């Protein structure tokens, strides 16, 4: 975890900030598409939106892998002083976000594989099927993909509530430092 020299960092690296907001924006887009396209009638639009949804998910998965690697090799600035339960909740929330950001697209990819529709990222890169074609399994993976996507939304709301509380009630630097384009 703490592999890098212990420079007393007070800000996130540009890479960390860029990855944070890129992943956030993509998840919003992907989530919105995921709410819309499955209920559309069979149509070219549905096929297009489904593809965009999958491209976004795979991009999130790739960025999440990069983020995890970056996080493990770069020490983030310490959290501001706060009660232990808040510290524990913040750590739990961040941990869950990392897990879900990887799990949700992974389940989507598995679902697509089980449904017999390989994922072709950006229409260019054909990804391997993670599981064989299996209608029953596809139904289960679809359910899990959705259930964990909703879980991700709820955990995000907790994350958002925490950020806003720190900004408007505690009036500390927690949110601002994720908005700051530092020199690191």
């Amino acid at each position, binding site marked *: 975890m703490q592999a890098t020299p212990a420079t007393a960092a007070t800000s996130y690296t540009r890479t960390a900030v860029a990855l944070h907001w890129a992943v956030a924006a993509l998840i919003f887009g992907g989530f919105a598409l995921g709410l819309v396209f499955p209920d559309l009638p*069979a149509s*070219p639009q549905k*096929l297009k939106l489904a593809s965009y949804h999958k491209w976004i998910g795979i991009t999130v998965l790739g960025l999440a892998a990069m983020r995890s690697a970056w996080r493990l090799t770069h020490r983030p600035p310490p959290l501001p002083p706060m009660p232990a339960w808040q510290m524990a909740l913040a750590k739990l929330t961040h941990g869950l976000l990392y897990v879900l950001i990887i799990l949700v697209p992974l389940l989507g990819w598995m679902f697509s594989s089980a449904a017999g529709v390989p994922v072709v990222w950006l229409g260019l890169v054909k990804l391997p099927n993670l599981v064989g*074609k299996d209608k029953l399994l596809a139904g289960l993976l679809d359910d899990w993909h959705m259930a964990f996507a909703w879980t991700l939304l709820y955990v995000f709301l907790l994350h958002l509530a925490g950020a806003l509380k720190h900004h408007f009630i505690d009036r500390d630097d927690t949110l601002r430092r994720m908005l700051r384009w530092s020199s690191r």
Partner: protein
Amino acid sequence: MRRRIRGRHAGRLAALLTLAAAAAWGALAAGAIDAPRSAVGVEFRQMNVPVEAPFRRFGGSVQFDPGQPAQARAHVEIDMSSFDVGDDDYNSEVLKPEWFDSAHFPKATFDASGLKPLGAGKYEAAGTLSIKGKSQNLKVPVTLEQRNGATVFSGSVPISRSYFNIGSTEWKDTVADQVLVKFRIAVAAGH
């Protein structure tokens, strides 16, 4: 329709005749297609994603004598409503008039007459594919194998959706025109 039925009867008769002749000629494959050991389907591309979809119901007959490949005959009938792309919504979509129009054209047929030997179990079948009231003469590469007492003819051939008027123009950008028809036809080996 009537022509197809007559074709099937003629096929059966020919199959019986070939079976009768089998005793004299030896190894050959003749008779009804062994559907459970066979497969007919397509591979198409939507948004550049290759998707395989089988036809669940098909049938027909094959007469093949390795000594006289030019005399080989095959008749395959495919129930268009048995297309299974893996999603009920799309399965119903594809039966609509702009796609298969299965209400008016319930069956597709392939009639092969003559196999040209290319060596090492490879042949080229000359045949006519009829879908949705349109016919096309095709040269189909076929690989022949003996497997568990059956003669298995397998291969694939690309066709054009638009040639057979399958799919309206609004789908042009999402579903590729070229569709690969794949088949594995098993027939009990002659006795």
